[in-house]
């Protein structure tokens, strides 16, 4: 399916045309795509869709941005008292 508002490329470099993926299907394939676990022909199909579909490009960019932002999210850790207890235990251990 050619997404609305875009023109399909005049020629395709592939021997066989990649299968059509609808946007609704593509959004569920993006993690497998990013993880690099899609079978080769699905990979080609996703890339072909993305090339022609600006909204899906935006969606993918948003997934990537979300992942990148997660890298700087504050994390919960042991409370200071617990950490102090552990440090004390460590010191005692080698005393």
């Amino acid at each position: 399916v050619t997404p609305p508002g875009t023109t399909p490329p005049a020629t395709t470099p592939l021997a066989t045309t990649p299968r059509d993926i609808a946007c609704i299907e593509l959004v569920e394939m993006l993690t497998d795509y990013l993880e690099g676990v899609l079978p080769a022909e699905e990979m080609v199909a996703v890339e072909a869709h993305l090339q022609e579909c600006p909204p899906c490009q935006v969606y993918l960019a948003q997934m990537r941005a979300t992942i990148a932002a997660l890298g700087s999210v504050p994390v919960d850790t042991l409370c200071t008292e617990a950490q102090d207890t552990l440090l004390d235990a460590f010191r005692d251990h080698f005393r």
Partner: protein
Amino acid sequence: VQVEDPMLLERLRAGDQVAFAAVVRQWSPAMLRVARAYVRTQSSAEEVVQEAWLGVLRSLDGFEGRAQLRTWVFRILVKAARRRGRREERVNAELDGPTVDPSRFRDSDDQYPGGWRADAAPTDWGPEPVLLAAEFRAVLHRALAELPERQRAVVELRDVHGFDSDEVCELLDLTPADQRVLLHRGRATLRGVLEGVIA
């Protein structure tokens, strides 16, 4: 209905292994059947029965003998099976359904079925550094806390702590496919949350 050996409880409390082995052999088939009514697979029913027997062992000394021993054992079993069943339901719910509201896509009778609707397509968030603002970090932090447990664990281990997929599968006892589905659902939900505050 089997008549219960009146000495059974005493023998178990005294650590009589023969008595324990016999009662496990005798009651486990029915326990499996009960467990199976709550959980999805035979192997998880077997785990539940095992867990129930371990629970019985732990509280054997506290058993007051008001009910029949067998009734008490099955009560422990049902509690364990319910707990497991609820967990499985949650996990299933974590793995089902689309991650993007289907109403944002065109209907099947449209010229472009399943394509984004013009008025519901995602719009550019602008330059990425904007997302790193403290405000969005706080939003993500809260949104992570609201993810279903396993999605949260997978997303945090992968994307916050930087573990690779093999490590996460190992740590959370997941198949690679389930790990990816949980990661996908978690990330997609978080993307949606950000979209809600940015757009």
